[in-house]
């Protein structure tokens, strides 16, 4: 079933010639028609139970969709919306149409309620926020949106000067930060697979000194290192998404984001080193993915943040040694053989 969904979304993206779409939306073009098509295809409700009108899939089942969001540099928040809609339905909340972002943190300040640097803020209508023991869905129309104005970025900071009326808070124990980090870990893995494939192709096409640069050992060694990091990132993301519900286990999500974020630096660096100057041009697609790699590396916590969480968790754990800890708390669920 998950493969059918992945095939369907790959087909939709292929028909849309995504690199052009990404550029247009990053330039300020409307994301509405792209979003409408995705929503009408039912992907946004993939994690919503079947009796509530969704596809009833678990996070493990949508791994392929999450990878595709990354490998196509999807410029709308499908992954966060999928999670947010499942959370809202489960909490008995009404679910609005339109793309939903997730905010890692909300800060009450003198100016109001602030959410700094929200991923996809520029192309979202709603943002799901944790406020203490509760979660709430806030309308971006009611907020002041300040784009970071980082070149091409869809990130923006949000500030609600008045607490928006009519928004219901609902109790939730879900670790929203870890869940969102897990989604971005999978997107990172997808984007890294794209960058890797482009790099291998380029090394075989580009000729210098009379032969493809992929024949040079110095280049081969670098691409082999890249392969190792990309494979590790994909496995880490699989660990994070290995959940039978709509949300990940927080410790597995931590491992997923820590390891995928760690892989970003060598993967992006080697991709650019192999591509040479063409890789840093606007015209060539590589930049669509490597800009996202660096942005998503820190979104919802970089490797340092999550490594700290994992370390704290192990120090507190009752197991004496490392192997039982990672076997019992991080390894594959035994029902996924």
């Amino acid at each position, binding site marked *: 079933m998950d493969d059918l969904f992945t095939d369907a979304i790959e087909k939709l993206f292929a028909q849309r010639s995504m690199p052009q779409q990404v550029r247009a939306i990053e330039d300020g073009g409307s994301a509405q028609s792209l979003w409408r098509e995705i929503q009408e295809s039912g992907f946004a409700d993939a994690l919503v139970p079947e009796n509530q009108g969704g596809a009833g899939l678990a996070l493990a089942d949508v791994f392929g969709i999450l990878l595709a969001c990354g490998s196509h540099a999807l410029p709308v928040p499908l992954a966060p919306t999928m999670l947010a809609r499942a959370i809202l339905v489960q909490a008995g909340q009404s679910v609005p149409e339109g793309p939903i972002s997730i905010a890692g943190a909300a800060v009450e300040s003198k100016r109001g309620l602030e959410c700094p640097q929200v991923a996809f803020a520029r192309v979202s209508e709603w943002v799901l926020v944790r406020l203490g023991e509760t979660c709430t869905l806030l309308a971006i129309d009611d907020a002041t949106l300040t784009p970071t104005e980082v070149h091409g970025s869809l990130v923006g900071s949000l500030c609600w000067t008045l607490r928006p009326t009519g928004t219901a808070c609902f109790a939730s124990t879900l670790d929203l930060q870890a869940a969102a980090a897990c989604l971005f870990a999978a997107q990172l893995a997808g984007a890294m697979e794209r960058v890797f494939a482009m790099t291998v192709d380029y090394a*075989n096409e580009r000729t210098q000194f009379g032969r493809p640069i992929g024949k040079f050992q110095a280049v081969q060694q670098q691409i082999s290192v890249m392969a190792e990091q990309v494979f590790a990132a994909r496995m880490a993301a*699989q660990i994070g998404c290995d959940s039978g519900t709509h949300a990940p286990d927080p410790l597995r999500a931590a491992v997923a984001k820590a390891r995928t974020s760690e892989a970003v630096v060598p993967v992006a660096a080697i991709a650019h080193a192999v591509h040479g100057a063409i890789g840093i041009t606007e015209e060539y697609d590589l930049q669509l993915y490597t800009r996202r790699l660096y942005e998503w590396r820190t979104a919802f916590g970089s490797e340092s943040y999550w*490594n700290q969480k994992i370390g704290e968790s192990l120090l507190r754990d009752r197991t004496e040694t490392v192997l039982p800890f990672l076997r019992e708390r991080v390894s594959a669920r035994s029902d996924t053989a």
Partner: protein
Amino acid sequence: MIGTLSLTAIPAKDEALRAPVRAFLDEAQADVPPEVRIRSWMGFDADFSRALAERSWIGLTLPPEYGGGGRSAFARFVVAEELLAAGAPVSAHWIADRQSGPLIVKYGTDAQKEFYLPRICRAEAFFCIGMSEPNAGSDLASVRTRAVRTATGWLLNGSKLWTTNAHRSHFMIALVRTSGTPDDRHKGLSQVIVDLSLPGVTARPIRDIAGDAHFSEVVFDDVELAEDALIGEEGAGWAQVTAELALERSGPERLYSSMVLLDTWLSFLRSRGEGDSRSTALLGKLVANLSVLRAMSLAVAEQLSRGQSPAVEAALVKDLGTAFEQVLPTAIADALGANPNQAVPDSLLRALAYVTQVAPSFSLRGGTREILRGMIARGLELGR
């Protein structure tokens, strides 16, 4: 391209092996200090190996008709990771269990299987691998040790170098030239099983950087081998060695060489109470990396259990795994040294120093880092 690695869980029946192995190890290893346990698969203890054999934990993947367990790669993975994580002295039987036994199953005659396999399963036959020579390291196809046909079998001359456990093993499976010259490269190579007690065999142990003598130089001076010393097909040695190396590279031993150090450091951090955030983050980083590597290694085991020979995937996991094993001691040393005036237990320092000193070997044994990366590049069809 290389196939993807899928997250895999260990089947319940193989997982069931873990509890008895752990219970056995808890007792056997109770009083062994970290600096001894850290030697694990360099730790040679024939009695310990026989105790494992009595419990049927050696030769798990070998056929039952020869005394083996008839189990999958997952079963061996479970037992191997528990042994290594506990720092058990597994060196005596390790090579036979991991690769010599499976090689004999794959290429041996019925008579060879009947002779060697039950002895391996009983931990009565310890093996070493004769690949490297004084002038053939990474360039393995240039081996010069030669076996020449005689009326009764083969006459063996030449030498092997850096052979782990040669001076304390019963048999060596050696890659030798049986026809042609070193210029013929992969052609004319064969594998022979050498009984190391034969006249003309001299094994000289070489002391290593940590003060141990785990590897040797072996000289063959007119050693007379019987006809049935040949294993597999004459001239097919290169293909056989390649398959053998896939087994050598794919196991959990490529992740756990430094586990005892990690555990010893963890108990030190806990004993200090309030941890510093630098050490906590490093601990988390090592655990995150190890979790992912273990999952990758299990994915390779899953491919092995389906009868595949995932040589390139194994090379990829090995290179990544040994890089992790090498980072571990240097990073822990830095974390300890970041607080230079604290008291650190000597046993932790000894375990740390041991791993630091032998760590260069992690990316040499079983194929150097550079050779493995070349294999990955070929697997990716780079420069095709």
